[in-house]
């Protein structure tokens, strides 16, 4: 589903990704772990299509289509969802209005009929309820005044509504307490655990992986994947630290 080959990317002329390769098949969950500054968030932004990051080499294919040729919104319509480490606050724009326009833009791009207001509201309420988010919060401006945990939960509600094929989740576990971690973990499993879907979980710690069991774990250091393994690798990292693995 996702094929990254020898990806190089930089920001402000500073190389961050230095030959990263990764293959993700449908039905798989991949965890990408690594120390601070390894390029984890950059990988998320490059896949999402943020303009400030310049790809200087390599290829990325989503279902055989050239992802790097697409604008950010086209990537979303192609089935990619980027969960933000720091979801952005947008005063004056309600969650509902934003998500309805976003979903219908995606649907139009895929040649589907846009959802009516009533159909969308039903979907949004169901997704909010599944993640234990008060439906009233959907009416509030996007992430404004939300706690760290509420913002992450809102990311998952958005993911549930947009129903992507590939989710790239950047430190979705940061800022969550134990209860919220379980809710978010359950949300990822419920929305994304399917034979035709895949997840790339970018995380610093092992604890989210107790809830979302990865099929593969990769260690990202200095812009490249230096080691790959099964779920046991996450425990090894937790035990021995990145220093020992990277050395």
């Amino acid at each position, binding site marked *: 589903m996702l094929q990254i080959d020898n990806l190089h990317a930089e920001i402000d002329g500073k190389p961050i990704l230095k030959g990263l390769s990764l293959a993700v098949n449908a039905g798989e969950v991949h965890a990408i772990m690594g120390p601070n500054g390894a390029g984890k968030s950059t990988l998320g932004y490059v896949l999402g299509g*943020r303009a400030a990051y310049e790809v200087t080499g390599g290829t990325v294919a989503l279902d055989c289509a050239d992802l790097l040729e697409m604008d*950010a919104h086209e990537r979303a319509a192609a089935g990619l969802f980027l969960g933000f480490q720091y979801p952005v606050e947008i005063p*004056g724009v309600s969650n509902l209005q*934003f998500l309805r326009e976003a979903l219908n*833009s995606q649907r139009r791009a895929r040649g589907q009929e846009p959802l009516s207001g009533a159909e969308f509201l039903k979907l949004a309420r169901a997704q909010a309820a599944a993640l234990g988010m008060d439906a009233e919060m959907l009416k509030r401006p996007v992430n404004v005044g939300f706690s760290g945990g509420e913002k992450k939960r809102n990311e998952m509600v958005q993911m549930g509504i947009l129903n992507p094929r590939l989710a790239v989740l950047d430190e979705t576990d940061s800022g969550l307490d134990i209860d919220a971690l379980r809710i978010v973990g359950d949300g990822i499993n419920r929305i994304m655990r399917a034979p035709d879907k895949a997840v790339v979980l970018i995380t610093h710690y092992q604890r989210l992986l107790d809830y979302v069991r990865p099929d593969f774990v990769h260690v990202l250091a200095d812009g490249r994947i230096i080691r790959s393994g099964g779920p046991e690798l996450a425990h090894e990292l937790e035990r021995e630290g990145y220093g020992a693995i990277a050395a």
Partner: protein
Amino acid sequence: MTQLPTNRMEAWRWTDLAALEAARATVRGGVPAIEGLWIEGDGPRLVFRDGEFQLDLSTPGEVSIEPIAPVTAHPLGSATAGTGWRLTLDAERAVTGIQIVHVATGNENHLPGLIELGRDAVASVVETFVGNGWTNRLTTIRLAEGARLMRSVRLLQASGFVSLREEAEIGQAASLASVFLGAGGASSRVDGELVVAGDGGFAEMGGALLTRGEQRQECAVTVRHAALDGASRQIWRAVAADRSAVSLAARVDVARGAQKTDGEQSLRGLLLHRTATVNLKPELEIFADDVKCAHGATVGELDRQALFYLQSRGLPEGPAKAMLTRAFVADAIDRIGEDAVREAFAADAEAWLSEAL
């Protein structure tokens, strides 16, 4: 012939006087359609074409047409002397949903308006400007004790120049809330002087000015607090695209005895292109020592993080920019209390955004 101010005068330095002169030199021509401009409601409706009352298109109700001799020293406002419209309400009367459409077909037209509300009277007036040429208005407002006036004005002229002058005297515990939207193709100047003359009075004059192409719009508003416990709001939003310019000059004067004044002034500009200009000139002059006057003035571009966030969820760049710009403008338009009016103004802003972005 009206003696025009010049850009050398400080108060007129940003005014697009060249656009005014050019508009004035145009020849009267086609009459734009107005049917779609009415907002739902059964209040009085008045149409003026090139400043002349159109009886056949109007149901003026409590609004009368009569000679008005404005008392003003304003260089453009004083040019409006002549027959105009007048709304005078006795104590405790209420007339809401008054709509006035001003159609201009070219050249110049001038019209005075007068609103006098008696004690505890209530009125709401919506004015819409469409067409071409130079349109010049003076509106004089007098609010007696406890009177309330809601005023919403939208500038939708396709081209030319619109100059509005508002002069208001606000009595004890009276309230004037006015919102202006500039979302057409004409250059403009929204000029006002509001005096909070009675204790506990409230004065609000704000709005959103949206410009593109070579257009220039400005506001030049002064609120004078001359009594105790007064409050005022000047909330202006400027959005400038292409090579256009918006200038916001807002001033609050607090007289020596006007203690406990609560003033708020918020001037914010959004540049949609680097070639556009927003000028902000916030001024406060305070002679009382127990007052609260919050003020803020900022100019910036759309937040790139927010833009990427919206795009990453599937919104193309244009609609994403429009969504953020709409939220920016909403600060001013959401001040309109009447739902149908607010929705109509929001739709006009939306139409502007979809063309500009």
